[in-house]
């Protein structure tokens, strides 16, 4: 039979161990955030495109292929800007540098800061779309009534899987003025 003292000791020990698990799992909840981003980066899930791409001299060009690129521009709820691509579709040669513009106009009577978030469909093609210059790399501030052509330069990697013939690049712009003010 266990003595009272022994029971008390093991009670404290078990309680402390379990409390450590609780603290650990609370931390794990937050660790899921960077873990999620990491998994999305590695697998290209979610259609997230990478950061700014540097062109290398040995960029392979595949002259025999043409890939169709479709551009979409969306406004997040509550975003008043006019936002559209200069062209809806482009036919591009993998490996070659392409350029297009997205047009924005701020019809509001105050300055608004926006952030564009890209997404590529099909997801598995996201990692083959390299952007050397994109308005989504930085925030855009437009004064009341102002307009702007925002440039996008990109390369479709020549190693894009053969069965992908069409890529859709979609941008959603978010009004982040309030968030900037809060910070």
């Amino acid at each position, binding site marked *: 039979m266990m003595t009272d003292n022994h029971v008390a000791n*093991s*009670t404290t020990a078990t309680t402390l161990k379990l409390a450590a698990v609780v603290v650990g799992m609370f931390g794990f909840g937050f660790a*899921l955030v960077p873990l999620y981003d990491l998994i999305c980066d590695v697998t290209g899930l979610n259609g997230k495109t990478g950061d700014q791409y540097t062109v290398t001299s040995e960029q392979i060009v595949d002259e025999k292929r043409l890939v169709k690129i479709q551009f979409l521009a969306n406004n997040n709820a509550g975003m008043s800007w006019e936002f559209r691509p200069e062209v809806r579709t482009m036919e591009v040669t993998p490996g070659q540098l392409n350029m297009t513009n997205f047009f924005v106009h701020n019809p509001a009577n105050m300055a608004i800061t926006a952030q564009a978030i890209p997404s590529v469909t099909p997801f598995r093609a996201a990692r083959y779309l390299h952007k050397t210059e994109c308005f989504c790399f930085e925030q855009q501030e437009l004064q009341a009534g102002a307009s702007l052509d925002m440039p996008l330069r990109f390369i479709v990697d020549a190693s894009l899987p053969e069965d992908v013939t069409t890529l859709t690049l979609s941008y959603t712009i978010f009004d982040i003025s309030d968030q900037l003010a809060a910070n």
Partner: protein
Amino acid sequence: MSAVIEQHHDDHHGPAKGLMRWVFTTNHKDIGTMYLWFSFAMFLLGGSFALVIRAELFQPGLQIVQPEFFNQMTTMHGLIMVFGAVMPAFVGLANWLVPMMIGAPDMALPRMNNYSFWILPFAFTMLASTLFMEGGAPNFGWTFYAPLSTEYGPPSTTFFIFAVHLMGISSIMGSINVVVTILNMRAPGMTLMRMPLFVWTWLITAYLLIAVMPVLAGVVTMMLMDIHFGTAFFNAGGGGDPVLFQHIFWFFGHPEVYIMILPAFGVVSAIIPTFARKRLFGYASMVYATASIAFLSFIVWAHHMFTVGMPLAGELYFMYATMLIAVPTGVKVFNWVATMWKGSMTFETPMLFAIAFVVLFTIGGLSGLMLAIAPADFQYHDTYFVVAHFHYVLVPGSVFSIMAAVYYWIPKWTGNMYDETLGKVHFWLSFVGVNVLFFPQHFIGLAGMPRRIPDYALQFADYNMVSTVGAFLFGFSQLLFLFIVVKCVFGGKKATAQVWEGAHGLEWTIPSPAPYHTFSTPPKVDMSETHG
């Protein structure tokens, strides 16, 4: 089993008198009673919200409430039933029964036990008070998906977040207490594989709670920061991702659904052998099946989000992993049926609820398998079919098991037998009511009626009307349950120590009603009568 009961000690060390007894008590029986009454109060409150929902859906069009209030009702109904009714009821049962089943004098951490109960009334008062706040109560569903909850929720969302924090703290403290009690306070001879299954299922449930309630606390903390401190965990414009919310939420949410059903398995595994007058078939396989279900519950969460745009490999993995859960669950259902096979069965009220549990929970499990089929889920997702599925596992599943447990153990708690005739009437009203209520929802779901809407297309009208009739039948039957319990507390035929002819286990060796202090000296566990 035999037990040493120290009557002389109990006599001069009873409960304190007056209201303060309940405020300051550290007695596991008092705290268990308070949990059970609190849970019943929340069951009636959440049930009245459900009746508002069903009354509005009685006919197409808007008759009784506006859509904004309807959404608050669905949200509050879900939150109160999950966190206020089902979970505290099982904690109450654990408080009453775990020490008596393992031969311990009380829970290991009695003062913390008192705190973990008394947090709950504050948490739910705060949650319910949001109904009277400007902008109304939370209206984004009990799953509170971002950005609906973070960017478009009412100002009362902050109160909701703090209420969830408090519920989480209460559950975590309660489950630490259960684990410590079971691991350290068993009577000599009560080895792990001799413990009653209710104790086993609660041990595993408590581990699940300890693992996932902190994740829930984390996700609501992230919401709080997104709303008030300008972070962007779930805001795509700031670099976050709303889909991340769903992953974290369901990493908590899927184990949570097993938290609400595993103790029910334990209850049914206690009741069926008693009234079949046979030992539980396959005790060890029951333990391993419970542990397997608990493990699998951590790796299937994304089956709640098949439609978010997962890659094919993800859909397939989560589909097959989910279907795997049917194997240990099937083992359990098989064992319950095998226990009844060729048993000398009698059909007292607890047994009726337990058999109904086995049949109706299995229906809920089968619709769960249908939902697990990823390609089919695109049709079922967010329809009434999902509502029918989880209500079948939660109402005639968890709730019926809690009612079965109350009928089974209430003679031990009060010393009086409940009114068997009224108990049977309660069972049949509930059984008919619950099926009339939820079975038609399968059909309207398959026909395409979305969940969480106050109005619907005309072709769904007939089944919705039937469902509402069932809801009112089931809802008002629970007032009879209240009457039966109160009647039993105040009198009735005196119960013997064993209460049921076929009952085995340490809790049936002590007198009825159970003395305020039991097993101050550990009982001797008789090897021949244990489960192993």
